[in-house]
């Protein structure tokens, strides 16, 4: 944009996108002089603040409903894709070796499968030596977008989970212990033999905890990585969704990683502060088009080009950014 005067825009919300947003904003400030001030206060707080109009954009791991968006004059679009992976602490089982289906994962989290040598698990893993430990389930204790997407996936693949536990940033977990943040969950999993947890992919990789491979909606076994996360984002049903209101867990693609998540950016349709909004759009345009390598270095995946085009069209049609 090359504005003569630097503008500081402010955003708040999800901690899931915080690492990539801060990297993007540093690069963007170098390029344009405009600064972004992002507070990683949690999706709920981000939504509350954008409703009150105290910030230029909010970021949430759960999409807002069409009614809510209309009521407050807001619009939303996805920003970046990340994967959530089940991690296990099983002696002798290496990263990516253990195979789990959604239904089995749900039964484990429901407490119905309580031992690792349960026939439901060994049947999926012929040839893999699995210890007979008791399973200790680890979940997030704090309200989080990671839990939102994980429980959303479980309720898509398990009718029992859908009726009993449902999904949300925090739920009443039927089993297990709660660790605070990705850090807490990965530590608990490392400390408890026979435990299973779920964390953002970057955490599993950084802390070298064994993750499991999953069977996706197409019935294929997939490993978590940038390709399978991207495939999920590419095959989710964006076309028929209004305001990008699609939770892309259990995406239909052949290569799609089943627990893939995005964070929605929420902005005003008619901003009270058009000059700030303009910079915010420019920032997201820059990050969607040019920030891809920065996202990849942090184990996020950039949105597919077709989706980016759709988002930019949405800006023009719904958010008044022509």
């Amino acid at each position, binding site marked *: 944009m090359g504005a003569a005067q630097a503008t500081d825009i402010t955003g708040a919300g999800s901690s899931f996108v915080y690492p990539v947003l801060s990297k993007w904003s540093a690069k963007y400030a170098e390029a344009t002089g405009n600064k972004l001030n992002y507070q990683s*206060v*949690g*999706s*709920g*707080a981000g*939504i*509350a603040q954008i409703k009150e109009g105290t910030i230029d954009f909010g970021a949430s791991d759960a999409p807002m409903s069409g009614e809510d968006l209309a009521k407050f004059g807001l619009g939303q679009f996805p920003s970046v894709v990340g994967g959530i992976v089940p991690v296990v602490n099983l002696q002798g089982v290496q990263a990516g070796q253990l195979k789990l289906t959604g239904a089995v994962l749900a039964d484990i989290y429901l407490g119905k499968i309580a031992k690792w040598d349960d026939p439901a698990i060994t049947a999926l893993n012929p040839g893999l030596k699995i210890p007979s430990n008791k399973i*200790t389930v680890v979940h997030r*204790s*704090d*309200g*989080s*977008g990671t839990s939102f997407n994980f*429980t959303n996936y479980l309720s898509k693949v398990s009718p029992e989970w859908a009726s009993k*536990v*449902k*999904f*949300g*940033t*925090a*739920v*009443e*977990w039927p089993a*297990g*212990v*709660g*660790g*605070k943040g990705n850090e*807490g969950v990965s*530590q*608990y999993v490392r*400390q*408890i*033999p*026979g435990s299973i947890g779920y964390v953002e992919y970057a955490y599993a990789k950084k802390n070298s905890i064994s993750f499991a491979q999953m069977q996706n909606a197409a019935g294929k076994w997939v490993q978590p990585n940038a390709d399978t996360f991207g495939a999920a984002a590419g095959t989710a049903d964006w076309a028929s969704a209004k305001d990008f209101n699609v939770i892309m867990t259990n995406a239909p693609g052949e290569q799609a990683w089943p627990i893939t998540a995005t964070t929605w950016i929420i902005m005003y349709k008619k901003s009270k502060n058009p000059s700030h909004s303009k910079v915010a759009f420019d920032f997201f345009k820059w990050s969607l088009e040019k920030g891809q390598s920065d996202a990849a270095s942090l184990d996020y995946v950039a949105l597919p080009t077709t989706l980016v085009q759709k988002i930019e069209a949405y800006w023009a049609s719904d958010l008044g950014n022509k």
Partner: protein
Amino acid sequence: MHASVSNAVPSAERAAEAARNAKDSRDDRIFGWVLKGCALIVLLALVGAAGSTLWLGSDAFHTFGFGFLTSATWDPSNDQYGALVPIMGTIGTAFIALLFAVPVSFGIALFLTEIAPQWLRGPVSSAIELLAGIPSIIYGMWGLFIFAPFVAEHIKPWLMNNFSADPPDGQVSWLVTHVPAIGKFFASEYPFFGAGVLTAGLVLAVMIIPFISSVMREVFQTVPTRLKESAYALGSSTWEVVWDIVVPYTRTAVIGGVFLGLGRALGETMAVAFVLGNTFKFSLSFLETSSSIASTIANQFGEAQGLQRSALMALAFLLFVVTFIVLLIARLMLRRMAVKEGK
């Protein structure tokens, strides 16, 4: 003192002095108001904070009524909330913290004032004050990375083998078969997992020892030397001097110090959130995971909306109530002691 102005003094000077007196008393009044204002701010802040948590939590209190206090459910997806587990977790961890911190602090303070050689007092005292300055997140991290695994490996298995009805080594001890219900307090669903009420209580104990012991040390130093010297002269041992002279002389302040530590233990958030396990299942066991009021709020506030937010605010109000009740008990204890001593 103003009356000493004699008649011989010229009236101009007298007028000047009267003016000065008036100014002095006005200044005094203003100073008094300022001080009153400072004290009132504290009171206002307290009433305001308690009032606003009650106001914001009123939704939850209305919805669940008295059941909010007795229900062990915490189910955000079905909007059902009960405060029983967080209240029990808060009181349980604080109780364990006091159980360990008070005797140790007492020992530290006595050592420093009565027994330690002069050259050692300075360094140990500053070390204790430094401990008090460590941010609670550091204690949380230490608890998560180092202490919880230690508990899981060394303390918990021993306790479970000796006191639980379902010990890891399979041999139910004599004590458990003969003392009814003791196993209930030492049961654990996850024998190989370090986080829980006991671990959180021990971490809290380390955190409040500096507070309690430095208060105790300060007040022990106020005991007049001649009282102690007299007792020694009568042939008392150090223990007798401590128990019959130092402790009775400083009792009120010592209890004050203990409650300062207790207040901190009740409200501690980050350290507890890392080592308590954060579950909402009702249990009497010290080895089981649980939740505390402060950790529940810290965990869930960022993403909470609607009734859940209100329930968290209601929890915050209950923390005020719990703290208030604890302080009330302290007051009553002190009063009863005063009555016993015939004051």
